[in-house]
Structure formats: C-alpha cells, structure tokens
C-alpha cells in the first residue's frame, strides 16, 4: 500500500481539471484517510498474528523466551499424535452429522414457512429466535435439561439408554452437542432456504399443479432441484462454522467425558497451558489450511451459482 500512496502524491488539488489523463482524475486524499487506518489496524490485529503463528509453528517455542527453528518437527509429530487425530475425527464427524441434520430440518421448515399458512410472520420470527441467543448460555440450559429432565423422561418411558445422562456417556455425549448446535444453527440456514424458495417463480408451480402434480411431487421435482445452489451454499457455510465448535461444547461437556468430545479449537487452546505452544501453532496452521480449502470451494460455488 505504501507504493500506491507514493505513486499518487499531492492529491490535494481535487478540482484540478483532468484534461490530460482523461478518465483518471486524482483520488482525493480523504479516500486514503478513510481506508488506510483501517488497513493498518487490520494488519496489526489479524495479519500479524497469523504470520507470527505460522512462523512459530516451525519452532520449539513454549510461548515466551528463546526458541529455535525446528523445521517440520511439530508437523511430523502432529500427524502421529492420537489426541490430535481424535480431535480432528471428532470435529469433522460432528460437523458432517450436524450439517446434514441442520439442512434437512431447515429445508423442511422453509418449505412449511413459505407455504400458505396462518401466522406466517410470527412463526418465522419464532424459528429465527435461537440465532440471537448466546451459545454458551443456551448450552448451560441444555446441560441442565440433558442431565435432569431427559433421564427422568427415560425412566418414565422405560428407555434404559436415556436413564443416565447422555453427557456422561462417552459414546453418546456428541449427540447432545449436535442437538444444541443444530438448535442454534437452523435459523440462518432456514432464512437462506426461504430466500431460495421465494426466488422460484410462481408460474412453475402453477404449471405443475395444472398438470396434476401432488404437493409432494412438486417438492421433490421443482423446489428441491431449484434450490440446489442454496443447499450447497448452506452446507459449505455450515460445515465451516461447525468446524470451529467451541462455546457449546464448553457449556455441555467441556470436551468430556475424558476427551471424547474435544474439538480442534479446544486442542489448539490447550497450547496456552501445556507448554506445547509451538506445537499447537502447527495444529492451528493445519486448521487454517483446511479453512482456506473450504473458502476456495465456497468462492467457486458462489461464482458458479450467481450465473443462473
């Protein structure tokens, strides 16, 4: 950015007639004042930490004091670390299950909420509500429900699997995280599906119902194919967000029982205390690369979709 500022000096005389260079009037200095401070702040608080983190991932730093470059040692160790592998397996598995659940439910709700129904505005407002509630707080509420109410229900109905708290069950604790994450994530997927369904021209449906297509048939043969682009976008956005899972897990299981529900973010944050600062930086860098791949996928999809 420095070079750009230098090549256009003295942009003071705003009103100077730009007769020589026809379309390229000088950029008023105010525009630089609008942009450059933000760029500087952004660079200091986002770019610098990113560069610092990636650099330190190639060292043996413990977070302070002297350190030495150790090449790819951290990365090699990461790939053979069962704790790291378990956190990636858990987080990716959790994200996949959640993204499918969220999209199926959000799509069905969107179909209902765009149909001719009563109290449409109120119902939409209700289903969007979970979006505005703090993840950690609602996780604490669900924590209580899962450890008290659900076992009671299990006893009353006679389902032995539910009689003990799911949160204490290493094989099923992840289900609670899926439920609460879905509870909170459905609204934004739902809104995107509503926009998608509303963008389908009404004539398409009219033609179909004149041809005698049943509502179910119209759903499968018209709505679903015409919102495919929105499905894909929702899947990618959702998957990306769920990989960052942290708040809700802290509120429900805090990574437990044992380490059964430790997400990638939680393992990275363990670098604050365990003395493996540089090691977790390497973990964060791998995580970053996954995010970049997903971002590229999302941009490609966006570009492809806006074509129709």
């Amino acid at each position: 950015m420095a070079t750009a500022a230098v090549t256009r000096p003295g942009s003071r005389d705003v009103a100077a007639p730009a007769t020589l260079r026809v379309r390229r009037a000088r950029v008023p200095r105010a525009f630089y004042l609008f942009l450059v401070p933000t760029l500087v702040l952004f660079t200091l608080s986002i770019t610098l930490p990113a560069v610092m983190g990636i650099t330190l991932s190639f060292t043996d730093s413990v977070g302070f004091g002297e350190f030495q470059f150790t090449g790819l040692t951290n990365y090699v160790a990461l790939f053979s670390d069962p704790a790291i592998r378990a956190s990636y397996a858990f987080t990716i598995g959790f994200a996949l299950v959640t993204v499918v659940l969220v999209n199926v439910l959000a799509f069905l709700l969107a179909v209902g909420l765009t149909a001719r129904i009563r109290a449409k505005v109120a119902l939409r407002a209700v289903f969007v509500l979970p979006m505005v509630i703090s993840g950690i707080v609602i996780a604490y509420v669900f924590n209580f429900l899962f450890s008290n109410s659900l076992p009671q229900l299990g006893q009353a109905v006679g389902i032995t699997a539910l009689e003990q708290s799911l949160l204490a069950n290493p094989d099923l604790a992840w289900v609670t995280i899926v439920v609460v994450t879905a509870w909170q994530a459905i609204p934004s997927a739902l809104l995107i599906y509503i926009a998608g369904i509303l963008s389908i021209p009404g004539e398409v449906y009219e033609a179909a119902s004149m041809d005698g297509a049943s509502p179910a048939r119209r759903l499968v043969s018209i709505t679903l194919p015409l919102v495919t682009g929105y499905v894909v976008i929702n899947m990618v956005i959702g998957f990306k967000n769920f990989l960052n899972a942290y708040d809700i897990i802290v509120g429900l299981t805090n990574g437990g029982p044992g380490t059964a529900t430790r997400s990638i973010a939680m393992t990275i944050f363990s670098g604050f205390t365990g003395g493996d600062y540089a090691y977790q930086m390497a973990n964060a860098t791998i995580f970053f690369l996954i995010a970049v791949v997903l971002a590229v996928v999302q941009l490609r999809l966006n570009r492809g979709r806006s074509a129709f």
Partner: protein
Amino acid sequence: MTAQTLVTTTPAQVTARPRRRFLGRGGEDRPSRKTTLVLVVCSIAVFLPLYATLTMAFKTTAQSVDGQVFSLPSPFSVDGFVQAWNLTNFPRGFAISVFVTAVTVVGTVLLASFAAYAIARNWDRRFFRWSFFYLLAAMFLPFPVLALSQVKLTGMVGLANPVGVALLHVMFQLSFSVLLFTAFIRGLPEELEESGRLDGAATWMVFRHIVFPMMAPMSATVAIFAFLASWNDFMMPSLITADSTLQTLPVLQNVFQTQFSSNYNVAFASYLMAMTPAIVVYLFTQRWVMSGVTQGAIK
C-alpha cells in the same frame, strides 16, 4: 415472557379463523391448517429450553432442586434474580458487555462504511481493489487459528482487557461488513455525490451528508450483526481478557458450573438476564436480522 405469549397466541389464531373459507376456491389458495399446526408443534422445540429457563428462574432454591424442570414456580420468587445480581456482580458485567458491544457496533459501522466508500468509489485503482480482497480474506480465517498469537500480542501491548476484545470484535466483523457496504454503495447513484462535489463539498462532507444517510438500511443490518456477534461471544473475551473481574456477561455464567452449581434458580435467573437483551433487540429488529442473513450468504 414473549416466548409464552407467542406460544399461546399462535394456536389461538389458528383455531379462531378457520371459518373464513371460500367454497369455490381450489385447495391452493386457502391457508393450510395442517401445515400451520405442524409448524406450531415444531416451534415447541424452540420454546422448550426458553420456557425451562423462565420457570426455573422464578422458583425458590428449594423448589428448583426437586427435578421438575417444567413445573410452574410456586411460590413465585425473585430470590434467584437478587442472588444472581450479586453473585455475578451483574451491574459491572452488564456495563462491560454494553461497553464492548457499543464500541464494536459503532466501530464496525464507521470503519467498514469509510473503507467501503473509499473502495467502491475507487474500484478502478489497484490499491483500493486489492485492499478489498485483503480485508475480505479474513472472513475465511477462523479465530482459533489466530487466538494463541492474539492473546500474546494483546498481552504485550496492554490490551488484554475489554478494549482489546472490542477491537478484535471490530476486526473480525470488518470483512463481512465491508462486503455488504461495498455492494450497497455500488448500487447508489453517483450523481448525487457529484452534485455535492460541484458545490465544493469535500469528500468527507459528501460522505457525511449524502452517502452515509443513504446507507442507513445497510448500516442497520451491519450494526445488528455486530451487536449479536459481540454480545453473545464467549470465546474471545474468555481468552483475551486477563482480569476475571472485567469479563462480559456470557463468560461470567461459568460461575454456576464451578462454585454455585446447586442453586439452579440463581443460575437460570442469571442466564435469563444474560440472554434477554439480545432477545429484546431481536424483537425490534427482526426484519433487518432476517434480510441480513440472506444478503450475507448470497453475495
């Protein structure tokens, strides 16, 4: 409160109006009672945890430990709120949350709209175009990736406090907000600004008196997203703020997991107080929240 009134009025409306039916119309034209009913039943899933929070918050400690989460409070008690108020030092936590959120909202709207205006009106210059993509790139950068370094850096420069949290909140909101503002400004007619400029107004004045007022709807969307992200955030303040007495409301709730874990009425009263401001804001701004999600995703 709102949760309850809504859940009781919605089915009432459904059953109150089925008479207004026209015999001659096809099945397509009248509102479907079946679909409405299914949706109302589904909405129980939304209300269940909120209803539990509400009833638990108004119980006495004695009643709250009986295991009947969904029973109504009897006697009706505000003890939980009084104790939660003192235990979490609610006024201080609330003030800090308000401070962080206010700085985030104002900072995001101002910095993002300035930057977007400069970018949108100088799109033919490489510097501005590249700045746009540079700022946008952070949208794909998850906080956990930066967390370790950011905690270290904020500690080094004396920002391991709510000011640092607010600054980082603004920075993480920038990408999304600049994207929305830039798209919006491109759609504004440039003639108005030109006429202002011919009258001799400086760029700043043109922005302040012509462009910024026209951007009001988009500013509202950006502000609401900044508000929600900042008010509800747990990860960043819990990691960045070193002094636990300077924590925001969501982080303060962990006191009920560690120390006061059997005073359920107090815990739920505290949860209710932490989530209510966002719900109230949502009730007044639904439209912008809903349109904002769509714009953000489909751009």
